[in-house]
């Protein structure tokens, strides 16, 4: 049996008596993962983290309330920089949300066995990140309460969406992506909810997980359809991932603003999204693993593979940065050349160079196996990359807008306190949702790990 499967995990409490012999690995997986939900221990750190993130979430909601009453003027946006932190955050969050589905679906289709114990965290990350990202374009509308005008519905004002606009495509892309990720996530948890239901001893837990499990009983017929449905969903989710972020790239590329008007944008945005998403998976999985002692499920092999993916996407992003500069030069368009030079040496040059440092230089340490196998180092690299990707989105948006075609239209963007609240508040909200998830739902896909260990035993 290879090291990636649990071998030395004891069962919890009275369950051990059920087994006459040494508990088999399948039961050990169930005991460990469902034990985290049914008999949580070490509540102190959880309560502390939850309290902190709940406070940040509260601040975020208060800020949304204030924004609804006052308007987007509370942010530092103005003319010419009409897209500030809100759109930066939107692109950043949806990028983080890309990798979850990609990890889950693409690795399922390519039969990568190592996905089994991290796909759940990755999918959860996707669902929460995409939900948060969807808030930003709505809040950024002058009158957020009319956001439903983006939906086509027959009204007496004859207001229809403008179908030729990438912003309307975006609405459908986010909607589809959110619902499909939610379905994929929940459906994958059905058999695991059934395990928790069967192990629950408290009536309240039995009812709660019983309802969530929808009466799943592991019949072969059910499994057959479940596997078929998983594969079909995965097959649809992969093109969806690429199309959604391509459309985010189109939001920019459809404009004639120098620095945005580039055909490389859709693939460039997809690569950047996967890059930040993989980094975020590392940020989430590494603490999860050490806090819950999940080393038997999330092994160094997982971290190693994730680090390789991170390095690969970093190289793609690096190539895109080089291509952007090359295309500006090759196009011989004076505005493109000016904006590119301005990014490197203008008022926001530190943002540009910090982006290069975080996204291009730092990930190069992942060439070394020692770093890839060191969780602490990977965690730090993950954080640096996530910050770098946020800076890149900011750099793309602000540096293209603050220098327009006409010097008379130039202007600076300075973030206000509210901008910062809208940056950090959602991070707290995301952390709060994730903490609730690890408290109340199975953090690893039990049936898949069991399947792997059974297959291993055979061979």
């Amino acid at each position, binding site marked *: 049996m290879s090291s990636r499967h649990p071998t030395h995990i004891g069962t919890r409490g009275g369950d051990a008596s*059920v087994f006459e012999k040494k508990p*088999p690995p*399948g*039961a050990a997986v*169930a005991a460990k993962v469902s034990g985290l939900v049914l008999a949580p221990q070490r509540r102190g750190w959880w309560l502390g983290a939850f309290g902190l993130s709940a406070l940040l979430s509260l601040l975020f909601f208060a800020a949304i309330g204030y924004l609804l009453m006052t308007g987007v003027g509370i942010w530092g946006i103005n003319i010419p920089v009409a897209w500030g932190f809100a759109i930066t955050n939107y692109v950043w969050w949806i990028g983080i949300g890309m990798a979850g589905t990609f990890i889950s679906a693409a690795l399922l289709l390519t039969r990568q066995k190592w996905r089994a114990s991290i796909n759940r965290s990755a999918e959860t990350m996707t669902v929460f990140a995409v939900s948060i990202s969807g808030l930003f374009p709505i809040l950024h509308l002058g009158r957020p309460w009319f956001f439903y005008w983006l939906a*086509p519905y027959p009204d007496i004002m*004859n207001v*229809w*969406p*403008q*179908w*030729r606009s*990438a912003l*309307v*495509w975006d609405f*459908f*892309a986010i*909607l*589809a992506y959110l*619902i*499909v990720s939610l*379905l*994929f996530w929940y*459906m994958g948890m059905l*058999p695991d909810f*059934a*395990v928790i239901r*069967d*192990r629950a001893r408290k009536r309240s837990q039995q009812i709660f997980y*019983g*309802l969530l499990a*929808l*009466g*799943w*009983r*592991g*019949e*072969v*017929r*059910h*499994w*057959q*359809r*479940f596997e*078929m*449905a998983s594969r*079909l*969903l995965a097959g*649809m*989710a992969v*093109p*969806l991932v690429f*199309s*959604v972020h391509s*459309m985010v790239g189109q939001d920019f590329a459809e404009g004639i603003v120098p620095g945005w008007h580039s055909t490389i944008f859709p693939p460039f945005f997809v690569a950047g999204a996967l890059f930040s998403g993989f980094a975020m998976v590392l940020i989430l999985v590494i603490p999860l693993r050490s806090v819950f002692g999940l080393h038997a499920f999330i092994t160094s092999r997982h971290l190693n593979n994730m680090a390789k993916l991170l390095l690969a996407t970093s190289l793609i992003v690096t190539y895109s940065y080089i291509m952007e500069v090359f295309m500006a030069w090759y196009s011989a368009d004076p505005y493109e050349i000016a904006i590119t030079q301005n990014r490197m040496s203008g008022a926001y040059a530190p943002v540009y160079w910090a982006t290069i440092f975080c996204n291009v230089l730092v990930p190069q340490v992942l060439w070394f196996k020692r770093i890839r196998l060191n969780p602490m180092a990977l965690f730090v690299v993950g954080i640096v990359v996530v910050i770098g990707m946020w800076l890149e989105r900011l750099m793309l948006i602000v540096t293209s807008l603050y220098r327009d075609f006409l010097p008379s239209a130039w202007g600076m963007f300075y973030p206000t306190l509210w901008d910062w609240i809208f940056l950090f508040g959602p991070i707290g909200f995301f952390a709060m949702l994730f903490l609730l998830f690890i408290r109340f739902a199975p953090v690893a896909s039990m*049936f*898949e790990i*069991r*399947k792997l260990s*059974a297959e291993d035993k055979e061979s």
Partner: protein
Amino acid sequence: MNKTAITHYGLMAEFETAELLLKAVRESRLNGYQAIEAYTPFPVEGLDEALGLRRDLLPFFALVGGCLGAISIYFVEYYSATINYPINSGGRPYHSWLAFIPPAVEMAILGAALAVVFGMLILNGLPKLHHPLFDVSQFEMAERDRFFLCLGAHDPLFDEVRARRFLESLEPLSLHEVKG
């Protein structure tokens, strides 16, 4: 047919490994049983073939759902942009079909995904919050590491005594009566 057995849902045998269950399923089919249900903690390859399950309509559901999603949004796009309220947007044709494709693609995927998930649940008869099997105290193990074979009492061949003797010949860990 044994009329007294009909009050039961069936007889269930418990096995330790997937291979034993696979063998038991094959034996039961050879013995002519039709109403065979097998329960495993994870998908086991080959079991569906042993049970004689055919691939069902799920991919077809996906196709229909996808087409419905794409066609309906395309219809809305066409109707709103060319019939109900045509706007001259920079001289572009009213029926700008190229620009109408991206929402159609997204809605095709959404429609197919909804059809697949709800199709799976409907074909599986879920949600079904109670099932006679849940009354068997050992059944909770099915979600973890035990493999169960249930011979349904509605099988025309089902005879409680014979079925019990047959299942015992397969040397299961234990036998359980499932009350209907």
